[in-house]
C-alpha cells in the first residue's frame, strides 16, 4: 500500500511539474523599467542539430544584452526562444504559435531553410517580419522560382545565398592554381547540395574531377579519400558544416593529400581551429558573407566570451547583425509588426564587420559581397573580399 501511495505521489508531482511551472518563465522581463518589446528566435536548440541554433542564439542574446544596457530606462527587449530542432515538422507547429503571439514584433530566424519554408505561411499571414542569420536557400527570395519569392514580403536575411556563395567558393578555392582539378563533397543537407548546385554551372570545362555526397553523420572518410586520390584532385571543396569538415580535413591530410582544402560559411566557425591540429588546417580556404568576431577585433570576442560564457560560434556575426536590424528599429520607437516590417524594408545600417546592410525588395541583403579567409597557424584570417 505504502508503495502505491509513493508511486501515485510521484505521478502527481510529475503532472504538477508539467502544468505548474509554466507561468514562472514569462514573468521575468516585467520587473525592469522601460517599455518591454518582444523578439523571437527560431532555430534548433535541442536534439542533434542544436549546435547551430545554440551558437546563433548566443549571438542574438549578446546583441540584446548590449542593447538593453544602452537603453536602460527606455526599452527592455525580451527574447522568446522557439526551438524547432531544425526540422520542418517541428517548425510547422512552432510557427503558428509565434505568429499568433501578438507581443512578438520580430523574428530572428529561422536558422534552417527547411524550417523557414515550413514556417513562412504562418508568418506571412500574420505579417511578422523575419531576418534570418543562416537560411541560405535561394528559392526563398528568388522571384524567378516557382510561385515567386515565397518569403515575400516578411522574409529577410543577412546571410548571402548559395547562389552568391557557390561560385565565390569555387573561385577562392582555385585561386592561384594553374591547372585546378577540383573534387567537391557535399553533406547531403539542403545547404550543402544547394551550394554545389549553384557552383556547378560556373565550373570551367575539365576543372572538376569528381563529386561525392556524404551524410553529415559520417566520421569515416576513407572511401571518399580513395576517390579523391584516384581522381588526382589538387583542390577539395567541402560544402557542409565544420563538425564534419574537421575530421575530413584531418583524414585527407593524414592520407598524404597535399592540395588545397576549402569550405563555405558552414565550415567557418571560430571553433574550427580547436577541432584539428594547426598543421592540418594550415592554408584551409573559407568563404563567408561576414567576418567572425575575433577577426573584427580581439576585444569584441573577449567581451562576447565574458558576457555569454562561451566563445562565439558558427554564424555568430550574422546573428548579431540580424538582431541589430530589429534592435535599431526598436530604438527608433517601433513597437508594432507593421511598423517593424516597414522599418526593416527601409533599413540601412552597418554590419559588425562594417559592411552596409540593406535589403532588396525580396529580402536579400543588397550587395552581398563574399569575403575570403585562410587559416594560418590555427587562426582564421581575413584575406579580403572575393572578386
Amino acid at each position: 500500500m505504502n508503495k502505491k501511495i509513493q508511486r501515485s505521489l510521484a505521478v502527481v508531482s510529475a503532472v504538477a511539474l508539467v502544468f505548474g511551472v509554466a507561468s514562472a518563465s514569462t514573468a521575468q522581463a516585467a520587473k525592469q523599467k522601460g517599455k518591454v518589446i518582444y523578439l523571437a528566435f527560431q532555430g534548433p536548440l535541442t536534439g542533434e542539430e542544436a549546435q547551430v541554433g545554440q551558437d546563433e542564439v548566443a549571438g542574438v542574446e549578446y546583441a540584446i544584452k548590449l542593447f538593453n544596457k544602452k537603453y536602460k530606462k527606455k526599452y527592455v527587449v525580451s527574447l522568446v526562444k522557439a526551438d524547432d530542432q531544425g526540422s520542418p515538422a517541428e517548425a510547422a507547429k512552432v510557427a503558428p504559435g509565434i505568429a499568433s503571439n501578438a507581443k512578438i514584433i520580430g523574428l530572428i530566424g529561422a536558422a534552417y531553410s527547411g524550417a523557414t519554408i515550413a514556417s513562412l505561411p504562418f508568418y506571412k499571414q500574420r505579417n511578422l517580419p523575419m531576418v534570418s542569420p543562416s537560411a541560405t536557400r535561394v528559392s526563398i527570395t528568388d522571384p524567378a522560382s516557382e510561385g515567386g519569392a515565397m518569403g515575400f514580403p516578411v522574409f529577410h536575411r543577412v546571410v548571402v545565398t548559395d547562389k552568391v556563395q557557390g561560385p565565390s567558393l569555387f573561385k577562392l578555392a582555385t585561386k592561384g592554381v594553374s591547372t585546378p582539378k577540383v573534387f567537391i563533397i557535399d553533406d547531403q543537407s539542403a545547404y550543402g547540395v544547394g551550394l554545389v548546385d549553384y557552383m556547378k554551372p560556373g565550373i570551367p570545362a575539365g576543372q572538376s574531377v569528381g563529386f561525392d555526397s556524404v551524410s553529415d553523420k559520417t566520421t569515416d572518410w576513407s572511401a571518399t579519400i580513395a576517390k579523391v586520390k584516384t581522381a588526382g584532385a589538387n583542390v577539395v571543396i567541402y560544402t557542409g558544416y565544420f563538425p564534419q569538415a574537421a575530421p575530413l580535413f584531418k583524414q585527407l591530410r593524414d592520407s598524404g593529400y597535399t592540395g588545397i582544402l576549402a569550405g563555405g560559411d558552414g565550415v567557418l566557425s571560430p571553433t574550427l581551429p580547436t577541432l584539428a591540429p594547426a598543421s592540418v588546417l594550415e592554408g584551409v580556404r573559407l568563404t563567408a558573407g561576414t567576418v567572425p568576431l575575433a577577426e573584427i577585433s580581439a576585444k569584441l570576442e573577449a567581451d562576447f566570451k565574458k558576457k555569454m560564457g562561451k566563445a562565439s560560434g558558427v554564424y555568430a556575426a550574422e546573428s548579431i547583425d540580424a538582431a541589430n536590424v530589429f534592435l535599431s528599429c526598436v530604438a527608433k520607437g517601433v513597437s508594432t509588426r507593421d511598423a517593424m516590417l516597414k522599418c526593416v524594408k527601409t533599413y540601412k545600417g552597418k554590419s559588425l564587420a562594417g559592411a552596409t546592410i540593406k535589403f532588396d525588395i525580396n529580402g536579400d541583403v543588397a550587395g552581398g559581397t563574399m569575403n575570403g579567409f585562410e587559416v594560418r597557424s590555427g587562426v582564421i584570417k581575413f584575406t579580403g573580399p572575393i572578386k
Partner: protein
Amino acid sequence: MIGNFFDQFWSLTFGGLSLGFIYILIALGYTLVYGVLRMINFANSEIFMVGTFATVIVVRDLFKFTQSSEYATGFRLWFILGVALIITMSVSGLLSVVVELVAYRRLRRRNSGVLAPLISAIGVSMVLAESVRIMTDSRPVASPRAMEKKFLGEFFDAGIRLDNTIIVVAALVLFFILWSFINRTRLGKAIRAVSMNPSAAKLMGIDIDKIVSATFLIGGVLTGAAGFFYVLKYENTGSSIGFELGIAAFTAAIIGGIGNIKGAFFGGLALGLLETYASFFLGTQWKAVTVFIVLVLVLYTKPSGLFGESITRTRV
C-alpha cells in the same frame, strides 16, 4: 572504376578493417547483453559516446594536450594511451552497469517482456545524449593529437598507419581475452549457462542479477574500448555520434547472428569492409542502401545470421 578500385584496394581495405574492428567492439556490447537477456540494449550507443568523451578528457585535461602540442613518443606515449584506455573502459563499464540498474533491473524482475525495457533504454539514451549535449554547449569536441599518425610501412602502395595497426592488434587481443574468458573461466561458464537457460541456471545456484551485472560490465568495457579507439582514429566526438554508430554496430551483430560472439566478430569486419567498398563503388550516399540489401539477403538465406544466435558455438 574497377582499375581504380584495385589501385585503392589495400588502402580501402585497411580503412575498412580498422572501422570494422571498432564495430566489432561495440557489437560485442550488444551481443553479450542480448545473449543473456534476449534484449536489445538500446543505450549501448550512448555508453560508447560517453566513452569517447572520457578519452578526450583524459588526453586534453589530464595530460594537457592541445592542438599545437608536440606528439608524445616512446614510453610516455604508451603510458598515456594505456591510462586513457583503462579510464575509458572503466567509465563505460560502470555506466553500463548503472544503465542496467536503472533501465532493466526492475523490469526484468517483473518479467515484463522485451518492449518495456527497450523503451526505458531509449529513455536512458535520450537522457545521456541530451545531458552531454548541454554540458558541451552542443558543440563538437576534438581530442588533441597525442600520437603522430606515422606510417609504419607500405603494403602494395597502401600505407600502414600506426593508429590503424594499434586498433586492429588491440581489438584482436581484447577479443581473444573475451573469448577465453567466456569459454574458460567460472564466471564465463555462468554467463553461458544463464544465456542457455536462465531458470535452470538459477536452480543451479547461479545469482542471475550478478551475472547480468557482470555481462553489462563486460559489454560496457568493450564498448568503452571502442570509444577509445574511435577517438584515437578520428579524434573527434560529439553528443550525437552514438546513434548512427550504434545502429551500424547493431546491424553488424545481427548479420553475424546476435548473441553470438564469433558472429559479432565477423559481422563487424564484414560491415566495416562492405561500407567502405560500397561507398567507393556506388557513391557514399548509397552506402546504407547497400548494407540494407546485404542484410536482407543474409537474413533471407540464414534467418538467424551467419553464425546463429548463441553466446558460444554450442547450443543444445
